[in-house]
């Protein structure tokens, strides 16, 4: 387009925590084309996973992503356990649910804060992150670290939640739910926020399915697809229904994440109530031989790990398919037609995690 304007959006942009460039072609104020440029934070983790011992890889894959780190470890452990023919003990499965859902809460609160900041609503951003900090404290109290909690291991978990810690979580989460409810209400009912999000970047359900969108991006279009329904770890035994909102716009995607915070709080409490006694991990002998696939629900959508073992301590291949990778086509399809001023908010609404995408 000769008379159009081309604007590089990123790789450094205030709303993007991580580097991705969108080359945006404009016709007046309207976007006509968006092209992605990736590759700023590629670290070669998949290759490193083939060079490391398969047990040490648990610590490596946790470092794929800074926000959903333990969920990567869970997916990797489930894949290796499938290759080795192991099954984690019941207690370990429930503890995994507790930690994964705490992780989901902190990831979604992070997103809600960042979205508020993208509008310039900075006091709400700080309020969300203040609440999030208490989830981080719960993680540090139970697992020892704030983000990269290293609790999953092949065949089970490495830490236990004792009665006192469970009591602390049970006391803290209802308080946290009340505070988060107040903040979510003020985010979702605010006039300015509604003006900036309702009807922006609409992905119809059929298009989202066709483009292979996953997670809250898909559920925000009204499709009830959630990998937790497959029942890995202890999700099969806990009651839970995927949160969906029908409109497919930025507002719906935000509302899905907001409601999932409360759903996750309920899941943590339910898992703690039903926590069975028993071992934390099963021992195993032998080395992985064969291939297996694990699909789990990360905060941003479906996360797939494929592991191919060849009978040695190194893996033949470790393949990671992350949710943001699946959501970028949907984003690029809805950006044309938006106004340029809406690009940051619509881009943020798929909650892009570039470190995951490039590994």
């Amino acid at each position, binding site marked *: 387009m000769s008379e159009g304007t081309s604007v590089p959006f990123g790789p450094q942009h205030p709303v993007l925590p991580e580097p991705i460039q969108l080359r945006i072609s404009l016709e007046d104020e309207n976007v006509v084309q968006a092209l992605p440029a990736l590759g700023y934070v590629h670290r070669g983790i998949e290759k490193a996973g083939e060079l*490391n011992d398969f047990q040490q890889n648990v*610590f490596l894959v946790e470092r794929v992503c800074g926000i959903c780190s333990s969920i990567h470890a869970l997916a990797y452990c489930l894949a290796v356990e499938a290759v080795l023919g192991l099954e984690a003990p019941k207690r370990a499965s429930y503890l995994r649910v507790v930690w994964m859902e705490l992780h989901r809460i902190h990831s979604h609160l992070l997103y809600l804060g960042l979205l508020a900041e993208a509008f310039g609503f900075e006091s709400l951003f700080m309020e969300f992150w*203040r609440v999030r900090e208490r989830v981080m404290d719960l993680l540090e*109290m*139970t697992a*020892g670290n704030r983000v*990269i909690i*290293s609790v999953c291991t092949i065949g089970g978990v490495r*830490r236990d939640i004792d009665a006192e810690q469970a009591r602390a979580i049970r006391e803290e989460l209802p308080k946290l739910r009340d505070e988060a409810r107040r903040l979510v209400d003020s985010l979702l009912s605010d006039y300015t926020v509604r003006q900036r999000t309702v009807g922006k970047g609409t992905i119809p359900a059929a298009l989202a399915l066709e483009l292979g969108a996953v997670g809250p991006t898909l559920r925000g279009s009204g499709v009830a697809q959630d990998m937790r329904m497959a029942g890995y770890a202890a999700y099969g035994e806990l009651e839970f229904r995927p949160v969906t909102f029908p409109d497919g716009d930025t507002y719906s995607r935000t509302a899905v994440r907001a409601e999932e915070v409360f759903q996750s709080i309920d899941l943590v409490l339910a898992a703690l109530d039903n926590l069975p006694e028993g071992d934390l991990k099963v021992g195993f002998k032998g080395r992985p031989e064969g291939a297996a696939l694990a699909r789990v629900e990360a905060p941003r959508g479906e996360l797939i790990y494929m592991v191919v073992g060849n009978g040695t301590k190194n893996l033949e291949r470790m393949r990671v398919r992350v949710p943001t990778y699946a959501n970028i086509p949907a984003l690029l399809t809805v950006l044309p037609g938006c106004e340029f001023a809406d690009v940051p908010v619509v881009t943020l609404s798929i909650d892009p995690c570039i470190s995951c995408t490039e590994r």
Partner: protein
Amino acid sequence: MARMLRSVLHNAFSKPATRPFPEAPRAAFEKARGLVTFDCTDCRFCGACALKCPTGAIRVVREERKILFEPFKCIVCGACLEACRFGSVQMGPERRKPVYEKPVEVYTKPEADKPATPQDRNE
């Protein structure tokens, strides 16, 4: 207006949500993962910790009966702690203090008369 006044009064008289960090840092949680240290009293220098370490922060020199530990490679995952059968690896809740140079800590078996471990050394 009344609602606003309530918020104003609440904010004016409530304590801040943040901690007065440099003056009064928060006490570490009891089970937090922090400083890794070695106690070589019962150590057999078998090298299990070095084998399990995902970052290669530990080197065990069996002939010299020494453990070389690079704390700045350590990711405090605790794999060495689980690998050791003799209770020679400890992990405390405190964080490591900032330093100017990255040290290599050398741990040896304490002699009867000199219990001095570790000796810091720069390579």
